[in-house]
């Protein structure tokens, strides 16, 4: 796998819409009022611009996450933890058979810079792709006034546990983070901590639901607690996961409230395998050989358990580890 040294280059600006076009390696990115257009030497692809931007800002914010991030069935990225593939059609049967699939590998910083540059140019005031569709404006139309607030919000990540002294704080009213409208019916009380003299600060508890309910973003996890490399992520999910995730390891979902519908497909071909509907209290593994996309009719709370052991992706890719998590009796 050769890694290109390329960085993002501005190609030009459309005088009608005001948006600029960009090139990274052999990929060119252009948008019009409704769509993003991605071109490469053997082909081109069109993606509805809201979906494209929702996927792109999450991909950067997640640090390209674990494994494959499909913006749709054709275009996406693969994280190699230091380098990143940008691909088009590489995991789509039709594109491969037509011989138009294409993939290039870049340094992760180069892809981050490119996606951030494109996002900043293509996102105008009044539209936040990290918000649920009901809570933000639209990206369609010509370029508007430039946004001045942060476009990208990375993981909120606890080192040990959210809210511990010296660790990442939980979201709060004091920080201006309101309970989301979809969780306004819940009561949020605080756990009662009674420390004996001399042990102050050694016992700790938080209202995790309160932390999740105050999130202003969707499909954007925060790490709440870490046991060695056992990482508990929590997130609020509304509308649809704007990417299709193909993990490079097994991960687990625990539905904390409400429900999410997951479409499951083969990771390499995209061929559908079926669906899973998870309701409050349900637990389900997402094996390492699938891709999945979630749909949440109402904003819900989801807990994701990830194994952050370094180089785990190589052990799955080599076949040393099976792509599913449980051995039955």
């Amino acid at each position, binding site marked *: 796998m050769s890694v290109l040294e390329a960085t993002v280059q501005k190609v030009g600006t459309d005088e009608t819409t005001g948006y600029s076009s960009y090139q990274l390696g052999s990929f060119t990115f252009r948008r019009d009022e409704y769509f993003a257009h991605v071109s490469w030497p053997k082909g081109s692809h069109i993606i509805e611009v809201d979906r494209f931007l929702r996927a792109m800002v999450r991909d950067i914010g997640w640090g390209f996450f674990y494994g494959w991030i499909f913006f749709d069935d054709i275009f996406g990225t693969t994280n190699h933890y230091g380098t990143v593939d940008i691909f088009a059609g590489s995991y789509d049967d039709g594109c491969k058979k037509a011989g138009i699939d294409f993939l290039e590998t870049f340094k992760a910083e180069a892809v981050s810079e490119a996606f951030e540059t494109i996002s900043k140019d293509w996102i105008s005031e009044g539209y936040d792709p990290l918000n649920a569709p009901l809570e933000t404006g639209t990206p369609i139309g010509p370029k508007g006034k430039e946004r001045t607030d942060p476009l990208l919000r990375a993981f909120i990540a606890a080192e040990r546990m959210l809210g511990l002294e010296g660790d990442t704080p939980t979201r709060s009213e004091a920080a201006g983070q309101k309970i989301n409208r979809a969780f306004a019916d819940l009561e949020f009380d605080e756990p009662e901590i009674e420390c004996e003299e001399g042990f102050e600060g050694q016992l700790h508890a938080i209202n995790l639901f309160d932390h999740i309910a105050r999130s202003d973003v969707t499909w954007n996890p925060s790490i709440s607690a870490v046991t060695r490399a056992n990482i508990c992520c929590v997130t609020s999910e509304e509308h649809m996961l704007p990417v299709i995730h193909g993990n490079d390891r097994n991960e687990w979902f625990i539905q904390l409230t409400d429900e999410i519908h997951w479409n499951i497909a083969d990771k390499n071909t995209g061929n559908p395998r079926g669906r899973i509907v998870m309701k409050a*209290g*349900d637990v389900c593994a997402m094996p390492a050989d699938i891709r999945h996309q979630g749909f949440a009719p109402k904003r819900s709370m989801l807990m994701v358990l990830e194994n952050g052991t370094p180089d785990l992706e190589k052990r799955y890719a080599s076949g040393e*580890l099976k792509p599913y998590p449980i051995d039955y009796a």
Partner: protein
Amino acid sequence: MAYKTHTGSLDSYDKGVIELDDDLRKYAFSNIFEVAGNSAPFERVAVVQNLEYVAEVVRSEGESPWYAAPHDEFAIVMDGEVTFHFVKLEDDQVPGHEGGAIRLGAKPNGPNMGRVRARRGHQVLLPKGAAYQLVSDNPSVAILQTVDGPETVKKWDEICVLKGEQA
């Protein structure tokens, strides 16, 4: 528009569906309230396994044994109320096994650190260096984030949806 948030409990939960053209065992689909309801009090049943890491579900009912682990663990209460009692361990009392909780024979001889009373949605640190006990007046449910250990109970065949049918 007023929203209604759906949560589950031991007494009332809806289980979802898994409809796949695949071996359903790979997905280990279960429900924590069903698992807790069908298990003995304080049986630490694995519902998640990521190699050496697990999430266990317990039905807290009465007083649990005392536990300790050589690393931090975390509990999320999902139904009812659980009071966690903590006792400080001396350095030579901290378990030295590879991982996961072990059951102690009795309350350890150390100073009481205090207690945490937690209800649905609360996450509690079970810190390394402390022994802990769960106490509930009424049946309650908690998820424990930990390492696969001597107290981890695995009964995947019993708790998971294994064949293509309504979950």
